[in-house]
């Protein structure tokens, strides 16, 4: 049990970041529903204390099931689970020091905002006076202001989200679970609350397990991301690793689907693709390669190369389409030679330089290390 006398605000003042955090260990977690549907296939996972960890995947990939198993709302069919080193596989949810922010927020309609926030403390038998102080502290911390006095049905989506967060945080759980907490909000509010949530986590140093299907959100917020598909973890890594070095076709496509090419022939570091012959950094074994559009550099064909000495993939192309997005410009390029009709997409950040026009000849340069070999779909690290 965490020390209940310590409160969130005090932890912040003391800069005491590790106190509330617990690590999580999952071993061979499997979930099969009656009728044979397998939601999770033997998941092994270590989440560090104080980490902002994200479960990312398309709907039906098993991420919510995994979260519910952490909360104790679902029992795994097999495998074991530890929180803070203690085995809790069989512990019912009301005896776990884990709280959840639900996708629908699940605020109790029969209770006021204040009583909603106090609900967990009341169930744990925290005395009335202490309950009030702690509710007040968390309300200050999340800056709820006068929202506490309102009725639940008077709140907007963003306000509900923050109440749900306060209701979970006030219990000072070892681990906070967040099930797509921002998915019901519009884009602007969503970005604002992403920042707010991230700051909250950083100040508290609490272990957050966050579920989302939005890869951008996952990258903004997470220390590490686990990408799931069909109940199997595809890759675990930092946002950078997952985005820049996806291990397989699924992860590469899920994190951004442009510029994935099938490899038709390979010899050492040389590979043949629909956009022509490319040189990779290492010998390539996968059936596909990925070139992230923003790693490609474009220049006029007659100009000097970027770094003449380095081994560089040079492709001569013609601009087919141009999409101006303000901060960057996307070009769709048709290969002039060596290609088989495939389109290469390049994303150039807009630094105020002259833009290429549709029909221009350009030279695309790709560093060997930016040619990422992908394993087959489903193959994992």
């Amino acid at each position, binding site marked *: 049990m965490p020390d209940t006398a310590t409160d969130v605000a005090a932890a912040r003042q003391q800069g005491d970041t590790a106190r509330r955090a617990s690590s999580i260990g999952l071993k061979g977690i499997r979930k*099969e529903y009656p009728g044979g549907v397998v939601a999770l296939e033997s998941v092994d996972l270590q989440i560090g204390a104080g980490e902002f960890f994200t479960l990312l995947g398309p709907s039906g990939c098993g991420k919510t099931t995994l979260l519910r198993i952490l909360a104790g709302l679902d029992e795994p*069919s*097999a495998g074991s689970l530890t929180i803070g080193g203690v085995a809790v596989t069989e512990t019912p949810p009301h005896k776990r020091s884990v709280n959840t922010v639900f996708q629908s927020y699940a605020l109790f309609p029969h209770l006021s905002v204040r009583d909603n926030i106090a609900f967990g403390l009341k169930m744990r038998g925290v005395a009335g006076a202490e309950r009030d102080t702690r509710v007040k502290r968390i309300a200050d911390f999340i800056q709820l202001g006068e929202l506490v006095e309102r009725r639940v049905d008077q709140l907007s989506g963003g306000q509900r989200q923050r109440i749900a967060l306060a209701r979970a945080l006030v219990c000072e759980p070892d681990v906070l679970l967040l099930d797509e907490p921002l998915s019901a909000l519009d884009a602007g509010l969503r970005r604002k609350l992403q920042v707010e949530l991230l700051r909250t986590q950083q100040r508290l140093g609490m272990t957050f397990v966050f579920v989302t299907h939005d890869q951008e959100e996952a990258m903004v917020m997470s220390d590490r991301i686990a990408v799931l598909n069909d109940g199997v973890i595809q890759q675990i890594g930092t946002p950078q690793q997952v985005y820049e070095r996806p291990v397989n076709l699924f992860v590469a496509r899920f994190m951004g689907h442009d510029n994935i090419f099938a490899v038709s022939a390979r010899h050492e570091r040389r590979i043949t693709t629909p956009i022509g012959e490319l040189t990779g950094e290492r010998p390539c074994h996968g059936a596909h390669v990925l070139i992230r559009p923003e790693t490609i550099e474009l220049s006029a064909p007659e100009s000097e190369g970027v770094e003449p000495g380095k081994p560089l993939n040079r492709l001569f192309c013609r601009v087919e389409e141009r999409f101006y997005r303000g901060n960057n410009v996307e070009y769709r390029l048709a290969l002039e030679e060596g290609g088989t009709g495939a389109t290469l997409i390049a994303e150039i950040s807009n630094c105020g330089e002259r833009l290429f026009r549709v029909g221009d000849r350009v030279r695309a340069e790709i560093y060997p290390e930016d040619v990422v070999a992908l394993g087959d779909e489903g193959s994992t690290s």
Partner: protein
Amino acid sequence: MSSADPVWRRRRHRETRHLLLSVLPGALWIFVFLVLPSLYLMSVAFMTNGGYGQPQLPLTLDAFRNLAGFGFLGWSPGNLYTLLRSLWQALLSLALVILVAYPIAWYIALCRAPLRPLMLLAVVVPSWTNQVIRAFGWMNLLAPGTPLSELAVRVGLVAPNLGLFPSSFAVTLGLVYNFLPFMVLPLYAAFEKLDHARIEAARDLYAGPLRAFFVAVLPQTLAGLLAGSVLVAIPAFGMYVIPELLGGGRSQMLGNLVAQQFGQAANWPLGAAGALLMLLATLVGLVILRRLGRRLGGDDMVI
């Protein structure tokens, strides 16, 4: 693997126990105080009538023969007339209920949204009063000497010194009155979802008002109409209070025949056979309703 999985087995056990603890009291209550009595009543239909209406062995089909009109004195059409009258009254009142309820439901759906719940309430509220009192109200309205009866006499609908009540007309009126809300509610549900674009499309494609009605309106409300028909016709078939109070001796229906056998007539098996017939009618109605619900994609909650 799932059935052998110990976690699942344990869980299933727990859930089954929970199910039993929560649902059993209600289910058992209904089983003991309705299903068992009904089964007993059904079994009575196959017994012999002993002297004072008490059912006795041996088992026989006499009660059904009796119901069909075969008695000690040979065949008489009385019971059969009662059956036919029940059927006729149920169908006639159904037709009239449709004629009244259809425009009413349509009108409610055409009114402004905040008014609609109030209007529905206005239709339903009278049925919250005890049906004996409602029938009594009609007795007051239709009795000899009242303005309505006087009017009927003057027009020549009834003989002088007689009233509109008691009569089989009063029974039909009472049935229509009683079952009107049963038709308005499902019809309104259908009208509320009415796709007006289809009517406009029909009008746009040169259909006259009547044509547009049959092409665009009626098909969309058919489900509600049929559901309402079952809800009206089946209970009307077994009605007891209204024919008893408004009908007088010559407008008896099946419900009265059944009730009599447990009272003065003292023939439980015959009464039970009539009750069995009503149950069968109800069952047929339910099956139709379920079929409709499924075929028309509605939810099963219509019942």
